[in-house]
């Protein structure tokens, strides 16, 4: 297991607080207010999240841990707007997830769990160039940001290689590069350390640190008992649709 990287404590991130509230909840970049989400209909309807509250402030990383099926991915998908809450509100940097889609997603970087979301026959560089356009990065900056991402995520030698010819760890590095290419203010990571080697974990830790250093927020979800390459302001346990201190 790699050595855990320690992030510099920030004004809002100093010390671990066993609460779902950010130190200054009014300035939270990520805010879940009494959020409930069901799946299924009729008798098969089950609540995955029940009246969940969570605030993540600027410069803060929060880890949500939980067993399989606890609702971690649901929580992150609610933050991206892929899912709508049945009750309550999710607000990202003062934008509700059901409004101003373009502005909301300029601020968000989302890494889904697993190794999907890549085009098998598209090159590493092709993926980054495509995402740069989709993320509405200014044309003049695209080339530079793509080059920077290739360097930062150790993908320079793989730039021309097709995604289906990458190892799982290399795929994960590319997925991380895509997630962070547009310099999101809020980072939502679902099991981000999947398949990464020690070098990859180090890159992940430093990239998360960069987001926090520029005043961003990170919501990190991982299974129970997994050692993490970053230190968090809070580690919360998601069980029975509710968050509690881990």
């Amino acid at each position, binding site marked *: 297991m790699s050595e855990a990287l320690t992030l510099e404590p920030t004004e809002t991130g100093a010390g671990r607080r066993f609460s779902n509230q950010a130190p200054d909840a009014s300035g939270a970049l990520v805010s879940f207010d009494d959020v409930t989400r069901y799946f299924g209909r009729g008798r098969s309807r089950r609540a995955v999240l029940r009246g969940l509250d969570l605030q993540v402030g600027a410069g803060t990383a929060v880890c949500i841990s939980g067993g399989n099926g606890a609702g971690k991915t649901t929580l992150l998908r609610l933050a991206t*707007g*892929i*899912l709508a809450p049945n009750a309550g509100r999710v607000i990202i940097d003062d934008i509700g997830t059901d409004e101003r889609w373009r502005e909301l*997603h300029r601020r*968000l970087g*989302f890494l889904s769990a697993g190794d999907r*979301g890549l085009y098998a*026959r598209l090159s590493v560089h092709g993926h980054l160039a495509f995402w740069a356009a989709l993320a509405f990065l200014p044309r003049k900056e695209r080339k530079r940001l793509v080059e920077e991402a290739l360097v930062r995520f150790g993908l320079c030698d793989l730039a021309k290689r097709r995604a289906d010819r990458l190892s799982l760890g290399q795929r994960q590095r590319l997925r991380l590069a895509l997630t962070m290419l547009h310099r999101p203010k809020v980072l939502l990571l679902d099991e981000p350390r999947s398949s990464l080697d020690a070098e990859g974990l180090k890159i992940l830790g430093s990239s998360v640190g960069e987001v926090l250093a520029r005043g961003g927020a990170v919501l990190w979800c991982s299974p129970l008992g997994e050692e993490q390459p970053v230190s968090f302001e809070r580690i919360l346990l998601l069980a029975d649709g509710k968050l509690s201190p881990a």
Partner: protein
Amino acid sequence: MIVWIQYLEAALATVRRDASIYLSYRLRFASQILAMVFTLTIFFYVSKLVRPDAVGHHGQYYQFVVVGIVTLAILEAALTISQLVRLELVAGNFERLVISPFGPVAGAMSMAAFPIGFAMLFAVIMLAVAAGVFGLPVHVGGIPLALVVAGLGGVTFAAIGLLFVSALIAYKSAMGATWVMAALGLIGGIYFPISLFPGWIRWAADVQPLTPAVDLLRHALVGTPSMQAKWVELLKLGGFAAVLMPVAGMTLWQAVKISRRRGTLMEY
């Protein structure tokens, strides 16, 4: 940067991506050309069996059916968009589109551009081969009108394809695309003139966009007499494009909203 330029650039990036993936299969284009030559040859000989006065002037069935086939191929390309979106859902790529500033609606719309644009390019190649090898008399003077019709037809067919994408996103199935294409091929007069239909069903030719599109293209490219005045058919086609595309965009957005609420947006 002006917002619409960002959308345009993202759409162009989508076209580049699709072209790059298409070109990565090196034999695909050669195989399509081969299939096209076989089709042209089959209909060249079939046209010799058709009664000479069946279409327009003496012996015009070959040009009639070739233009019909290329038009149907463009419609077919548009109706495959729902399959492409399904593939994106299965591969987990649609999620990336959804969480981008470009968004799911513009993303799905831009996914229609490459297949339809490629089908149009392929139509030009097919007409050129038919002209060069089988003596199809293409009217060069009719090309400007044909381009206008192709543009309006492309938008209209894309809108129909996007309605199927909406169905796919909302209900996880767009199985109607196959029979809709077969039905449009039948009532649109692709393989035979609509005048052969019994009177009670001819109205069907007037309530869908394939008939004016194919009729105008035939008139412009190979000089087949048109069924109605050119401007009437252009107006019809333009009307279909102007109405169907906004409807498709709104339907798609509603489908996304519904599946966000149900929690099925990423299901397939």
